[in-house]
């Protein structure tokens, strides 16, 4: 692994919940280079929280601590809000899950993309619009001129998500986090969106953090996989070596996946070991 861009060491995120504390992320450590890293886990495993803490966009009451949270030499934990704003969008970006909710309903999607560009480049409207149109083409949206003027409720899920990708990549960030980018889409559209994502990431040499609950999806898409459970990392393994996974949780997930080649009379269900919660 070369050009390590991101170093996370012992990240802890907790949310006060009345008198108790919910520990969403517990002692998570990993590094990211010019690769596609998957963070896989079920709901509540803490995977989305990691993404948001990298951008310091957690709710106010969240308590974040880490031994090291470093991006390209800058300390994210200690950065000021102003510094973070210059990082967000420009250097680290995030694609959200459902374009029905993640796009501003009263703004045309082209304008939203152009806005992402103008946030970090002092250019006029015309230039930003052209860049946005260019970007719409890059995410394979036909008739970008027409699409520019549409509102989010007028576009399909796949198109909206591609607009989201355009928006988050237009400033050419070094790391992009994709938080369940295809989970809200029809299965038939997923491949298309993933294809767009793969092409853009590979072409620009960005680092990608792909957050998902779908192990099967990421094993073909990403280079490395991190398996999370209850806020902790249980296993870290290369995607192509996933079948050699050692942790019983990972094995349990893999074994419960149906396969066209190996037919089984019944699929085993995952047996949770309370020891994993420790």
């Amino acid at each position, binding site marked *: 692994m070369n050009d390590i861009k991101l170093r996370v060491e012992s990240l802890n995120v907790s949310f006060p919940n009345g008198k108790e504390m919910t520990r969403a992320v517990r002692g998570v450590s990993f590094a990211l280079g010019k690769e596609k890293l998957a963070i896989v886990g079920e709901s509540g495993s803490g995977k989305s929280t990691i993404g948001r803490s990298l*951008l310091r*966009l957690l709710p106010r009451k969240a308590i974040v601590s880490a031994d090291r949270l470093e991006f390209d030499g800058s300390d994210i934990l200690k950065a000021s809000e102003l510094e973070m*704003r*210059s*990082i*967000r*969008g*420009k250097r680290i*970006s*995030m694609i*959200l*899950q*459902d374009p029905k*909710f*993640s*796009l*501003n*309903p*009263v*703004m045309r999607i082209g304008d939203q993309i152009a*806005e*992402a560009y103008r*946030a*970090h480049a002092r250019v006029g409207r015309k230039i930003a619009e052209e860049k946005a149109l260019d970007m719409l083409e890059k995410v394979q949206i036909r008739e970008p001129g027409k699409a520019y003027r549409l*509102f989010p*409720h*007028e576009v399909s899920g796949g198109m909206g998500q591609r607009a*989201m990708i355009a*928006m*988050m990549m237009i*400033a050419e960030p070094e790391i992009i986090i994709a938080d369940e980018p295809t989970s809200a889409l029809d299965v038939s559209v997923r491949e298309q969106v993933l294809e767009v994502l793969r092409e853009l990431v590979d072409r620009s040499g960005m680092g990608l953090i792909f957050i998902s609950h779908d192990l099967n999806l990421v094993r073909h898409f990403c280079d490395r996989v991190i398996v999370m459970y209850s806020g902790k990392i249980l296993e870290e393994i290369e995607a192509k070596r996933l079948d050699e996974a050692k942790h019983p949780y990972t094995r349990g997930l893999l074994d419960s996946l149906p396969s066209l080649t190996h037919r089984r009379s019944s699929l085993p269900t995952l047996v949770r070991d309370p020891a994993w919660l420790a």
Partner: protein
Amino acid sequence: MKSKSISLTALMIRMARRLGVIALTIFGLLLLTFLIGRVMPIDPVLSVVGPDADRSTYDQVYKQMGLDRPLYVQFGIYVNDLLHGNLGKALLTGHPITEDIKRVFPATMELATVAILLGILVGVPLGVFAATRHGRLGDHVVRVLSLFGYSTPIFWFGLMGLLIFYAKLGWVGGAGRMDIAFDGLMKSKTGFVLIDAIAAGEWEIFFSALRHIVLPACILGLHSTAYISRMTRSFMLAQLSQEYILTARVKGLSERRVIWGHAFKNILVQLLTIIALIYGNLLEGAVLIETVFAWPGFGSYLTGGLLLGDMNAVMGCVLVIGLIFVALNLLADALYQVFDPRTKS
């Protein structure tokens, strides 16, 4: 793209249905005011002829007023009169009520307009501020302030205001629209003293009018400011928890742009809608404020008619207010249709 003709027909059907509902509502309104005006213990004939009239005069006026006809015929006459703009004659002035209302209404409108401008200019930023400081001190302060705002009896607050700011401090003008010295000196073109004064270049009158409108407008605006700030706050809170706000922050936009360019833009339509409705409530508050400040507007006319027992004047005013309310409701709906892109498809 769906064919435009289908959506046009659908739109027209929707409009027709709405108009039907509104027509029905207005009809009900008329019926209500008619019934209130007729079914009451005060004898309308007596209030016209006086208690000393003899039998034949009484009968004559009785017939003249159409009171011997069956009720539904009377209603028909009533509606017919209305359609011709005839609300009857006022007891106080002897003029047709419609003329009187036309004369006094601009004074109230001027007051209500200044009041709502204040409500917007103060209430909206306060509401946005409170939403961005949710759960913290700033939020609590604004909430408590607006709570006091709409719990206060407006007429009492007006009196207190007069006592403190006029009698004790002399900062503002007293009762009436301007200093008595200026009364009648200026030709009233629009009925809006502030506009007329500027147009005529009469700066002394303008400032006098300004001094006189400040206090009643502020007091009248109190309820609307409190209400607007409360509604703005809750609209903003609802928006700030949405996903697209996170998207805006991920893009690295400044907090100001996130709040105003994204969240606030999404509540504009809702705000405009309630502002239209609040304007109607201001007309109601005007009734009390005008009594306190001797403001020669619609409210004073209404209460004047009330104290005299002039049912025609009272009912005429009530009807006018009802119609305005219906119109404002319509406006609020129309604003939604026009400005929310989601309703366009």
